């Protein structure tokens, strides 16, 4: 049995850095007049508290070397220009911790959620899948990099030894069985995170390393430090044994990013969404899942719209401050590029009302699509490409003008609705004329004029004899009607009409405006016209073709 522990050094700082906009956004900011190098190589300090009393709560080694100390105020810390000051974000720490757990579950189903900055993985049975312990450790290191985290990985047959070795040794550490005490010996006792008074006590005794602590007599140590002393002693000797406490797998995939400068344009927003989607899809892929829906939430900068900071808050104001959309995908996918294209098209057709200061993107996880195509089944559009095509078409003609027509059970003329186009795949192979009797007379088609064209109709004896509408006018040679239809009198859009089917003969000379649009011979065209009794006007409903 072996355990691997993953530890994220400077966890709070890494959580903030992970959410920092990428280099491309830095280029955009340079164009706006600010310039900052990539954050990860810098000295960073995090502040926390209510302004103007923010204080430094954590910093990396580079910031400590530059002179930053814990408890400094923000204005004091800003005296060090080489140090980047950032606000601590508990939300980002939660997301980084979720990414860490996803990393563990991508390798083994048995993961312990030990601390916000460390987890332990049971490696039992993984040798056949991934290889030796060192190979697994390297794999974990690489996958952590893909998720935006720089970690330490330690492998040992003892859970507590692996946990503490990951905190003490940078990079990868594999501790052979029986060598736990020897390997832990040189490490400082701070890896056990003892209380400050214990550290001071041990320091007075001259005990600074684990090897020194392991040499102390156990009985006297327990008399001086109590049970925690006994615990530290066992850890230092690598003798502590305990069972794993397994964590329940969570299916929550969210990434968010707070922006220092509000974004108004789609291009820089696309860069940021690309980064977030890459991280989201990496986490989904690590768990062998895909996204069935994407939820976007933008926090908008409404102050730039002229709203006062002291204006009374109500639900309408709160609603205007956020932009929330959920995009359901026809098939679960984890292709970041495809998702980015779809989101870009959706945002082009329905952009947010103000500039954006915070982005949150979440994915509803679902098992990825697995389907084997049949050799003899009829071809159909690929679901992901079809969704992209429909999104592009919706941008071109409008969302309500694309889809599958569906008839409504109503007597209202031209009653139908547009539904989502999702052709079901046939499982029966290509069969000609399924349910379609060959050889029957084809049904004459009708073309609808939307909206119906207003017309002027001359009547004789109550029947139409001449009609003119749009660029057409002619003599009515045949008229069939009136066919009365009405309905839904209780609604505002009730209808009541008298319909006629008419055949019109029009000559080229009769249509002065339409000569170039007509053939040289007299044409007979069949239309359906109606008299709307509610509006007291004639209309042309359409043409038989």
């Amino acid at each position, binding site marked *: 049995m072996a355990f691997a522990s993953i530890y994220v050094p400077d966890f709070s700082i890494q959580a903030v850095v992970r959410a920092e906009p990428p280099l491309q956004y830095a280029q955009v900011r340079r164009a706006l007049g600010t310039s900052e190098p990539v954050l990860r190589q810098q000295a960073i300090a995090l502040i926390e508290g209510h302004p103007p009393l923010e204080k430094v709560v954590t910093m990396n080694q580079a910031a400590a070397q530059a002179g930053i100390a814990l408890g400094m105020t923000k204005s004091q810390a800003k005296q060090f220009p080489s140090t980047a000051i950032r606000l601590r974000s508990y939300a980002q720490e939660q997301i980084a911790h979720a990414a860490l757990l996803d990393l563990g579950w991508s390798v083994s189903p048995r993961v312990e959620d030990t601390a916000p900055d460390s987890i332990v993985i049971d490696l039992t049975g993984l040798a056949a899948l991934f290889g030796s312990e060192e190979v697994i450790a390297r794999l974990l290191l690489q996958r952590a990099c893909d998720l935006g985290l720089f970690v330490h990985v330690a492998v040992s047959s003892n859970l507590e030894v692996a946990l503490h070795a990951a905190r003490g040794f940078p990079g990868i550490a594999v501790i052979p069985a029986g060598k736990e005490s020897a390997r832990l010996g040189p490490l400082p006792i701070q890896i056990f995170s003892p209380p400050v008074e214990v550290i001071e006590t041990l320091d007075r005794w001259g005990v600074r390393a684990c090897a020194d602590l392991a040499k102390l007599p156990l009985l006297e140590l327990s008399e001086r430090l109590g049970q925690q002393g006994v615990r530290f002693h066992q850890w230092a000797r690598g003798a502590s044994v305990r069972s794993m406490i397994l964590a329940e797998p969570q299916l929550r995939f969210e990434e968010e990013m707070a922006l220092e400068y509000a974004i108004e344009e789609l291009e820089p927003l696309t860069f940021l969404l690309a980064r977030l989607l890459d991280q989201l899809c990496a986490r989904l892929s690590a768990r062998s899942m895909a996204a069935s829906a994407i939820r976007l939430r933008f926090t908008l900068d409404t102050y730039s719209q002229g709203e006062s900071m002291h204006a009374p808050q109500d639900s309408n104001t709160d609603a205007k401050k956020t932009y929330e959309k959920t995009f359901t995908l026809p098939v679960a996918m984890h292709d970041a590029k495809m998702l980015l294209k779809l989101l870009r098209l959706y945002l082009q057709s329905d952009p947010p009302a103000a500039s954006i200061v915070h982005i949150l993107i979440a994915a509803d996880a679902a098992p990825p699509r697995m389907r084997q195509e049949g050799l003899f089944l009829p*071809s159909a559009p690929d679901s992901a490409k079809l969704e992209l095509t429909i999104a592009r078409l919706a941008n071109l003609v409008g969302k309500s003008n694309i889809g599958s027509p569906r008839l409504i059970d109503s007597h209202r003329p031209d009653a139908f609705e547009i539904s989502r186009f999702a052709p079901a795949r046939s499982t029966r192979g290509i069969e000609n004329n399924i349910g379609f009797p060959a050889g029957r007379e*084809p049904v004459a088609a*009708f073309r609808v004029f*939307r909206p119906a064209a207003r017309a002027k109709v001359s009547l004789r004896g109550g029947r139409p004899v001449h009609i003119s509408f749009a660029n057409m006018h002619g003599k009515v*040679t045949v008229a069939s009607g009136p066919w009365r239809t009405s309905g839904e009198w209780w609604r505002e859009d009730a209808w009541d009409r008298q319909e006629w089917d008419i055949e019109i003969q029009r000559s080229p000379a009769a249509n002065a405006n339409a000569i170039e649009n007509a053939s040289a011979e007299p044409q007979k065209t069949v239309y359906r016209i109606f008299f709307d009794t509610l509006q007291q006007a004639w209309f042309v409903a359409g043409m038989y073709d």
Partner: protein
Amino acid sequence: MAVSVTVLRSQIETALAGRIPAPFTHRPIQTETTPFNIPELDQLTGGMPHGGVTEIAGPPSSGRATLLLSALAARTAQSQACALVDGRDSFDPHSAEAAGVNLKRLLWVRCRNIDQCLRATDLLLQGGGFGLIAVDLSLLPPKTVRYVPLNVWFRFRRAVENTSTIFLLLDQESNAGTCASLVLHLLAEPSYWAETPGQQRSRLLNACACLLNGSQVYVELVRSRLKSGAHQFSSFTRITDANHIVNFRSKRKWSDFTNVITSTK
């Protein structure tokens, strides 16, 4: 020294023997087709060719939409997804269902002008996977469609080549030119009006008595790549023979009921 064609031919055939059998023998192009499910028309044309452009041109009320619905019904019956780029949003779902079109397999793109139509067609061809893509420009002014550059139709034809997609173009005049593998021209004919027996002949005096029953559709085969003997080396011919005009009757969906009523009186 001039080499005769016969000697040259035999030299080439000898050189290619074993690699290319009979290099100078013409092989008829095998093109898969889908029938319109109108027997007269299928016998005349052989059906709509896959991977090619079929153009249907004609004046208003000549039966273009009828052929469109027959094509959609045939292709959706083969479990293929179809797309209709509607130039003037004139598609009638009720007629389509009566004609046997499976509306769940039809993607309807409702456009307002020629620019939207062409761009939508480009997007559908790029997406791919459709069994039939119909572009209905029938209600757009012929002058507008005439101004579409020829390279647009060539591009569309190139996009569907070597695929199983049928590209169907409907307009008032033939515009695709040599890009089209099959060109049909429809001729407008008077419609059929049902009358009760013994009724006066003047339809205007007894308007209530007559009912539009359908129309006679005349189809002229103008061009075809599929007619045997009409092409060599993938060329095709313009057909002006009277033998290449057929007609068939289309009926309205209530025609069956009027026949029953008439026969019972």
